[in-house]
């Protein structure tokens, strides 16, 4: 039997109004921490999550390392050093505010996590005596063992722990509910957020979330260039349902974004071009610093930033002579000399020296503790690895003491993509905020992957909590806005239209068309005419294809709404690309009609937003607009520094 009656209630046309001081959109790490921060201040909090908060978000099934915990007791670096390094590393196209918050408050969030029941240290002494373990605290470090600011963590325990804490704090969780639009009102010429609309993705019920303050904590966009109608869930790195709806609804409501012209050649799409992340032999990120060998079993040398060959495994985890610290992990790809850590020889050099493909990761040659921590903790706790990789490979007979795992292609992505196959990856564009993580709209905050140049779970947790506490504080001086009935009716019509059609186009056909258009018109090399043709085509899709979309049930309707959001984001990306009339190395942005790289007059943030009439508005924001990071952070956070006096719930 292949046809089933829809198992959930039919609530199309029904409506529920929900009020809260603070509304959090998105139940990933950032959203959970935002909700916790606000609830700790005694505010009524509503959390809206399209999936199930227990495991939702990019880190829902786990994550293995927490970057930039500079205030942990073993750290040899300061928040200022690492935050400034991240900004410098990305030539200023970085989120200094978010990074400083991550570096300064990240470890506090880890301690929170431990108090909720998440595992952040080796409590059983499994790794006692290991070089990466501090035997006094049980904390375990990754990458730079001298400076000890990145922690290995048991991330698969985190989301269930957060979920329990949210319930304990009586946060009202609306799971299986997609947020669809921000509600706003304009009073005395100032636009402010008044909440959001949503739809239950199992029943179709329409929800109006009225709130004094709203935190956008949803995902970054995806499925913009990459789409596979067969294995849709595998065509991007992040979860299938994380496609940037927060960006789309923010853009439609006038929220300002920056760096939306940045995209990189794809790194992951295991629907075809690549293998599942962390599931092949490699020596990056989760797998750092695995021993790599060539087809004959000849070991591939690691070198430091000066090209000096490293003799021992241990040396792979220490800065070079004269180097204070090195950066590795999330957004760090090919770092500047100043921050460059140990690495295997470049692929071209290996070919020149006669190394033979395929390469393998051979953990059997590593000291026992290093082997056990890569295969068992890192692979295991990193998202999407515990079951499909650690468990399944083990069942297939893989033994890290006896087997070596193959690499594919020539890089750690184990993939080879074309220049037009792109992703928003490596600190992509997003929402621009002030030091309160408030957007240009009063009453609307942003956190985690919705922020521009965001990265890593620590960043998500720290900025989430920060946005939540700022929103909670602001809610004390705010009142509920009026519900704009006309807006809600229009939104309801927009949402329900596809399910009211008996026949028409599926969401997959439109997503496929958008992805092909973006590859054709917004690929590796861009120019004015090409981008304009692309925009014209997407506007044609909006006018002519969208009215044909059809969905049979709330699930298909949710997917259809996602593609409408992907279309909005794609249009925003083309418009942002048109604005930057020069090429840029840090933004991975190449224009054939403006080939000059980063000319001084363009070396700054360009913002994009829509005005009330729907016109695209450009803004120009100087590099380093966030000021001196430490000074500004301290100026804005005396309350936090003094122990959060406004906290009501102290766990």
């Amino acid at each position, binding site marked *: 039997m*292949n*046809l*089933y*009656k*829809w*198992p959930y209630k*039919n609530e199309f*046309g029904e409506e529920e109004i929900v009020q809260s001081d603070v509304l959090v959109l998105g139940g990933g790490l950032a959203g959970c921490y935002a909700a916790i921060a606000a609830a700790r201040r005694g505010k009524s909090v509503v959390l809206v999550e399209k*999936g*199930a908060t*227990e*495991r*939702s978000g990019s880190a*829902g*099934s786990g994550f293995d390392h927490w970057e930039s915990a500079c205030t942990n007791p073993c750290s040899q670096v300061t928040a200022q050093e690492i935050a400034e390094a991240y900004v410098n590393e990305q030539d200023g196209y970085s989120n200094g505010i978010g990074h400083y918050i991550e570096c300064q408050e990240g470890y506090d969030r880890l301690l929170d996590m431990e108090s909720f029941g998440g595992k952040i240290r080796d409590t059983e002494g499994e790794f006692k005596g290991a070089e990466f373990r501090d035997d006094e605290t049980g904390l375990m470090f990754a990458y730079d063992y001298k400076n000890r600011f990145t922690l290995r963590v048991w991330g*698969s325990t985190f989301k269930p722990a957060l979920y329990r804490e949210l319930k304990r704090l009586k946060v009202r969780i609306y799971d299986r509910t997609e947020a669809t639009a921000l509600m706003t009102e304009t009073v005395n010429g100032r636009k402010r957020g008044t909440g959001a609309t949503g739809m239950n*993705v199992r029943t*179709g019920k329409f929800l109006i979330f009225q709130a004094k303050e709203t935190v956008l904590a949803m995902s970054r966009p995806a499925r913009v260039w990459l789409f596979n109608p*067969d*294995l*849709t*869930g*595998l065509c991007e790195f992040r*979860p*299938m*349902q994380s496609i940037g709806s927060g960006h789309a609804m923010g853009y439609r409501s006038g929220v300002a974004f920056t760096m939306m012209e940045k995209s990189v050649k794809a790194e992951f799409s*295991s629907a075809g071009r690549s*293998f*599942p992340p962390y599931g*092949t*032999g490699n020596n990056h990120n989760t797998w750092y610093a695995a021993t790599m*060998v060539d087809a*004959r*079993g*000849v*070991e591939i*040398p690691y070198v430091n930033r000066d090209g000096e*060959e490293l*003799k021992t495994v241990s040396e792979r985890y220490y800065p070079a002579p004269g180097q204070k610290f090195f950066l590795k992990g999330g957004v760090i790809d090919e770092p500047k000399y100043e921050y460059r850590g140990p690495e295997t020889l470049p692929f071209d050099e290996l070919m020149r020296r006669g190394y033979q493909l395929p390469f*393998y990761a*051979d953990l059997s*040659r590593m000291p026992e503790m290093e082997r056990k921590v890569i295969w068992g903790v890192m692979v295991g706790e990193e998202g999407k690895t*515990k*079951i*499909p990789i650690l*468990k399944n*490979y083990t069942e297939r007979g*893989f033994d890290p003491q*006896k*087997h*070596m*795992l*193959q690499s594919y292609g020539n890089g750690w992505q*184990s993939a080879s993509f074309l220049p037009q196959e792109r992703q928003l990856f490596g600190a992509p564009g997003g929402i621009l905020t002030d030091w309160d993580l408030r957007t240009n709209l009063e009453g609307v905050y942003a956190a985690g992957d919705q922020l521009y140049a965001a990265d890593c779970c620590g960043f998500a947790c720290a900025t989430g909590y920060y946005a939540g506490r700022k929103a909670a504080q602001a809610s004390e001086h705010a009142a509920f806005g009026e519900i704009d009935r006309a807006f809600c009716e229009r939104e309801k019509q927009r949402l329900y239209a596809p399910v009211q059609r008996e026949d028409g186009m599926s969401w997959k056909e439109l997503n496929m068309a958008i992805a092909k258009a973006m590859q054709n018109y917004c690929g590796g090399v861009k120019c004015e005419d090409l981008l304009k043709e692309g925009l014209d085509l997407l506007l044609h899709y909006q006018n002519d294809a969208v009215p044909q979309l059809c969905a*049979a*049930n*709330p*699930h298909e309707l*949710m*997917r259809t709404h996602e593609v409408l959001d992907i279309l909005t984001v794609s249009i925003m990306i083309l418009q942002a690309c048109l604005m930057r009339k020069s090429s840029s190395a840090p933004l991975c942005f190449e224009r054939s009609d403006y080939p000059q790289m980063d000319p001084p007059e363009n070396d700054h943030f360009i913002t994009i937003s829509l005005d009330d009439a729907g016109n695209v508005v450009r803004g120009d924001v100087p590099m380093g607009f966030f000021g001196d990071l430490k000074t500004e952070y301290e100026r804005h956070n005396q309350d936090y520094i003094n122990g959060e006096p406004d906290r009501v719930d102290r766990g």
Partner: protein
Amino acid sequence: MKKEMYAFVVPCSARPLVFDESRCVGCNRCAEVCQVDILIPNPEKGRPPVVLYPGECYYCGSCVMACRQEGAIRLQHPLMNQAKFVPVRHAADAGEEKPLPAEKRRG
């Protein structure tokens, strides 16, 4: 708007989830935790959920982690994504010359 709604199984080239009917008790924990909501409860109580949208699986494993019946549900990558592994191999075993003055290590 109150019309009867239906769902079809939308097949794909892979089979991400396989249930062992002899172990599954049909508690639907997996369907509750699935982020992409690809499962629906089986119309017959006590039987494994129905995988309506296998192509939307992103292979996170949350369903298996949530399952209380060991072995009732199996998640597997598509065949093309099952990476290859081989017994460890050392240059000396193959009688090959090393191209570099890299240190020689065994075991």
